[in-house]
């Protein structure tokens, strides 16, 4: 069968002041295929997506959609043509409900021209069921559901647009394995209807599972195009990083002296509304404890409640054997806690601040003089040292952080907390939306922190990450802890079992 | 860079416009005096007032004011600043007085420029600042409305800098160093009007007083004068309220007065907006029961005077207020002596439905 080219870009270059984001890219996307785009952060993937969806105009080169050359493409026009983009950074309106977001700008009207609410909710409910959220009321407000669920709604929105060409930018970054699989099923369904999809992801195993072809970017250039059937993960990674690469991250040493281990944090009887019920757990000194579970299991809520960021109905907290009253993050910080929240755009980035200011905010006391005034040089050096330690890629520390790539932004946020020398670090989805290279760097950083005596709790939805990093894993299901696994028992099978609320088989080894 | 240029351009255009506005005003009087010079010399040559050929105004401008102006023997141009308010129709007459005296003094024998600056409210601070700026601009004299006590300090500064100040229409409550006040004998006017109303209403009758602003000294003097006359005559003052010179507020207040006091016999308005009170009385059909008295004769009030809804109004010669202080100031500059000091009260004409058409023929 003759393969039709639906979207073709030829010799496209995109330059920003001081940065060449794309150099001479030429790609022909075949109709009905799922084309994966991989590359480290800063490689140019997002820029490419923005050009294809009309958000940016290429500095030079041509783009042709369905045989028609597109000049001065805008997102609106792209949408008309049938090009839909699902962003990594969600673009839902917090104050509106799910239905209004899905049908934003296209609310169904009745004969007099008023919004037909019944139809709106009916249609929305149907779409929500299609993306695996049958229990969500379409009238729920976006800000009342968590990040993962929001992403599903984004996909429902795109589905409602019946696009011909779908661009998915890291769609599964907040999803668990099973939800990702469900998304892939939907994608296969769409493919059978002839819809073409562009899939950007860092999850290389997913790419192997779902895509037909793969293009690899590095430093703004298209390195190679591969047929998925003939590709292995190491091939992809080697092209991405430009050097030989071996899979998996292993730590030098996993904690196994639990018999004599000293608890550093003890949480009892934690209750947060309906999200967290009677949770007890202990964190040992020098431990990397993972908390995992399905979306909505209550993992983030546990961390935020202990940190004092959200009110809780009950819960005692003991740090190093002493009872603590934590009513506000400042209490937690004073006790040596730190929290890197999920959803950095909403919860941790100060977009109008520079990189330097983002890093020094919490530990600012260390760069003030005796009168409480800032020492600019000291602030610069302080931020510089942490920025270098975490290898934050930025042209200058005074660069506004909004201009950095996601991975580097996250590193800056981690730097902010490291600078305060915490005893206990909470990480909530620390590598969400970050490329392999940066991920590994972050794993190393975490590992080093443990070696230096910190204790870490990491909430993660990535199975591989949880299995390979954690000394111990707590699995949550529907607000409760459904099980605990030591590193040696933390297999995918066991974790998935506990995640779904099932008990482990008796002979678990 | 583009944004910087855009801002530059916008602001330059803006300032150019302002400069243009300002100079346009400056140019006008200059032209007039030039024309006059030519015409006067022409008149001189032929020995009579008739012109030979060119169409030109020729005639000297008439002195329609209450004082004569001396010839300018200083050999220099004299500059006078006038700061006036324009809160309602009353001020139209005042400004007309100022405009006429400006043209008059622009003639070559007087060689005087008068710059009028208007303000849209009784803001003491703004006028105080304006006086300061006038001092900087080295005016020879300043004429201003005495809007509030807060301008007293600036008046002292002006006098200390050798610039005489004349107040008109309103005087400050505190003592000030202005040379003279040209305006109504406000307390006396209040007393007079109060007496007139007391005669109409009779002992034991009920009246309401609507005053402009408690913070304006002029209004307060009238009010307290009226109050005294009324109380002395045994009239009952049922209510006093502020209408801020607004006819709409006067309308609402009068309606409320009538509602609260169905046997109301009189209303006295101390400042602007009495036509609002007249309208309320007329709407209620009570013009025979209620006597409305007030001050001034604006265009809006005239119909009500003619119809007899307003029974009496006292004039304060707004035209004179706008022009006399300027002439007095001018004279003081030229002669070095103030011919008039202290209070220079303006005429207080009584306008009634009977005589109104003599002054303001329909």
């Amino acid at each position: 069968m003759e393969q039709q080219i639906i979207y073709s870009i030829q010799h496209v270059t995109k330059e920003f002041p001081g940065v060449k984001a794309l150099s001479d890219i030429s790609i022909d996307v075949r109709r009905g295929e799922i084309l994966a785009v991989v590359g480290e952060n800063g490689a140019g993937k997002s820029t490419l997506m923005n050009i294809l969806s009309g958000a940016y105009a290429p500095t030079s080169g041509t783009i042709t959609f369905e045989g028609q050359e597109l000049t001065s493409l805008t997102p609106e026009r792209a949408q008309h043509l049938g090009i839909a983009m699902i962003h990594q950074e969600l673009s839902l309106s917090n104050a509106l409900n799910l239905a209004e977001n899905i049908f934003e700008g296209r609310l169904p009207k009745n004969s007099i021209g008023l919004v037909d609410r019944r139809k709106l909710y009916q249609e929305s409910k149907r779409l929500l069921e299609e993306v695996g959220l049958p229990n969500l009321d379409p009238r729920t407000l976006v800000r009342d559901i968590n990040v993962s669920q929001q992403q599903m709604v984004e996909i429902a929105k795109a589905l409602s647009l019946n696009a011909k060409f779908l661009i998915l930018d890291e769609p599964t970054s907040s999803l668990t394995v099973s939800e990702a699989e469900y998304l892939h099923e939907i994608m296969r369904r769409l493919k059978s209807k002839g819809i073409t999809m562009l899939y950007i992801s860092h999850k290389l195993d997913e790419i192997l599972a779902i895509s037909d072809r793969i293009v690899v970017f590095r430093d703004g250039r298209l390195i190679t195009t591969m047929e998925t059937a003939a590709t292995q993960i190491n091939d992809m990674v080697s092209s991405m990083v430009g050097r030989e690469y071996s899979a998996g991250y292993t730590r030098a040493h996993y904690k196994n002296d639990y018999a004599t281990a000293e608890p550093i944090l003890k949480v009892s009887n934690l209750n947060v509304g309906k999200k967290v019920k009677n949770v007890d757990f202990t964190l040992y000194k020098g431990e990397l404890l993972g908390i995992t579970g399905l979306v909505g299991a209550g993992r983030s809520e546990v961390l935020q409640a202990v940190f004092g960021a959200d009110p809780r109905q009950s819960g005692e907290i003991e740090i190093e054997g002493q009872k603590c009253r934590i009513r506000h993050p400042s209490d937690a910080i004073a006790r040596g806690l730190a929290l890197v929240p999920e959803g950095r755009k909403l919860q941790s980035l100060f977009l109008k601040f520079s990189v330097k200011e983002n890093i020094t905010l919490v530990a600012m006391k260390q760069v003030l003089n005796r009168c409480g005034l800032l020492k600019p040089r000291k602030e610069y050096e302080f931020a510089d040292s942490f920025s270098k330690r975490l290898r934050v890629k930025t042209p200058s520390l005074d660069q506004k952080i909004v201009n950095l790539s996601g991975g580097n932004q996250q590193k800056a946020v981690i730097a902010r907390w490291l600078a305060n020398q915490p005893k206990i670090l909470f990480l909530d989805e620390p590598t969400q939306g970050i490329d392999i290279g940066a991920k590994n760097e972050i794993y190393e950083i975490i590992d080093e922190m443990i070696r230096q005596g910190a204790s870490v709790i990491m909430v993660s939805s990535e199975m591989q990450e949880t299995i390979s990093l954690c000394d111990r894993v707590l699995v949550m299901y529907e607000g409760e802890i459904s099980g605990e696994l030591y590193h040696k028992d933390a297999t995918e099978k066991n974790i998935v079992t506990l995640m779904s609320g099932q008990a482990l088989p008796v002979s678990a080894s | 860079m583009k944004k910087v240029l855009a801002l530059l351009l916008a602001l330059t255009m803006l300032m150019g416009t302002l400069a243009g506005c300002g100079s346009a005003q400056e140019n006008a009087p200059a032209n007039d005096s030039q024309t006059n010079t030519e015409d006067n010399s022409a008149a001189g040559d032929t020995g009579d007032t008739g012109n030979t050929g060119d169409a030109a105004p020729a005639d000297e401008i008439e002195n329609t004011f209450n004082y004569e102006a001396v010839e300018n023997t200083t050999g220099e141009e004299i500059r006078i600043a006038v700061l006036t308010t324009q809160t309602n129709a009353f001020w139209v007459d005042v400004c007309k007085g100022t405009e006429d005296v400006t043209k008059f003094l622009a003639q070559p024998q007087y060689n005087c420029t008068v710059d009028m600056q208007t303000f849209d409210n009784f803001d003491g601070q703004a006028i105080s600042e304006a006086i300061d700026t006038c001092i900087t601009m080295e005016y020879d004299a300043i004429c201003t409305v005495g809007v509030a006590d807060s301008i007293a300090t600036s008046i002292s500064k002006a006098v200390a800098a050798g610039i005489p100040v004349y107040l008109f229409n309103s005087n400050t409550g505190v003592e000030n160093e202005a040379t003279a006040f040209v305006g109504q004998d406000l307390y006396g006017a209040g007393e007079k009007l109060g007496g007139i109303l007391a005669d109409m209403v009779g002992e034991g009758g009920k009246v309401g007083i609507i005053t402009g602003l408690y913070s304006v000294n002029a209004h307060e003097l009238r009010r307290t004068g009226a109050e005294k006359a009324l109380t002395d005559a045994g009239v009952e003052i049922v209510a006093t309220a502020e209408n801020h010179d607004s006819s709409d507020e006067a309308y609402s207040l009068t309606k409320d007065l009538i509602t609260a006091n169905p046997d109301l016999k009189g209303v006295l308005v101390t400042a602007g907006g009495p036509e609002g009170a007249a309208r309320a009385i007329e709407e209620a059909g009570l013009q025979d029961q209620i006597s409305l008295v007030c001050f001034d004769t604006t265009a809006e009030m005239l119909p009500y005077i003619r119809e007899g809804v307003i029974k009496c109004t006292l004039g304060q010669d707004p035209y004179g207020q706008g022009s006399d202080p300027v002439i007095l100031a001018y004279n003081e500059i030229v002669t070095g002596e103030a011919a008039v000091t202290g209070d220079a009260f303006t005429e207080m004409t009584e306008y009634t439905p009977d005589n109104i058409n003599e002054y303001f023929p329909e």
Partner: protein
Amino acid sequence: MKSKQEFGGLRAFTKRSEFSVLIGLMVIFIVMSFASPYFLKLNNIMNVLQQISRYGIISVGMALIMITGGIDLSVGYTVALSACMAAHLTTNVKMAWPAVFLVVLLMGAVIGLVNGLLVTKVKLWPFIVTLATSKIISGCVLLLTSGMPIHIESPLCWLGSGYVGPVPVSVIMMFLVIIGGSIFASMTQTGRNIYAIGNNERAAALSGIRVERTKTLVYVICGILCAFCGIVVAGNLNSADAGLGAGYETDVIAAVVIGGVSMSGGEGSIWGALIGAMIIGILKNAFILLKVSSYWQSVVIGLVIIAAVTIDRIRTVRKAK
């Protein structure tokens, strides 16, 4: 990739929003020097600076509030109440001037506290809250003064009408407040927190910042500055009446916005607010010097605000791309 030390470089300076406003100020200055022979007289410059000092002092407080994303519409009436209270306490109650000073500032702080608590604890919109409190305060002024002006003679008047050499004391006060405010905003932890809150309130809370306390603090600061300004104004005119402070909020907000503080919060500087105040002050001076009628004044000020905000918008949108 080499990292350059760029803090305070000339290049960085020109990119800031304050730079374009500074250019605007210089343009107006230059044009005015040609348009009127009186503009550059020392006398006039000092007058203008003194007139600016009124909203210059308050604009520090307003800038801090707006950086957190709030707004304060009650500044004008707070100034009036403070001026009248100072005059009342001095003239009628015959309190000693140090006590008057403290009491009036305390009153300003309390007004700010009320505003702040209503915004943070009761969680009402600042616009509505301060609009409402401004009405209450204006009523209080009338209750206090019965609409009559109050005369004031006191050593405190030196703040408003005193001179140090050719320079009015109020101008010196204004610069002190601006310098203090600027140091506070850019060089202290609390100042940094204020910007953080305006940037991303949730992230600020998660970073340990006591958001409610800090937001209340900026309203208190503004209240105190308004009270101080009230004393200055009363001292300048030797009189206080209910009409003072009318329309201050418009001028102050305009100055702050022109100077680069964004209505959405999180950015802007105190010096920018000063430049904005200077632009407005010089424009008002221009009106008198060039004899422009008062009707045009409002039109022009409005246009300047629109121009400044539009340019701010363009700059923000450009940054986002």
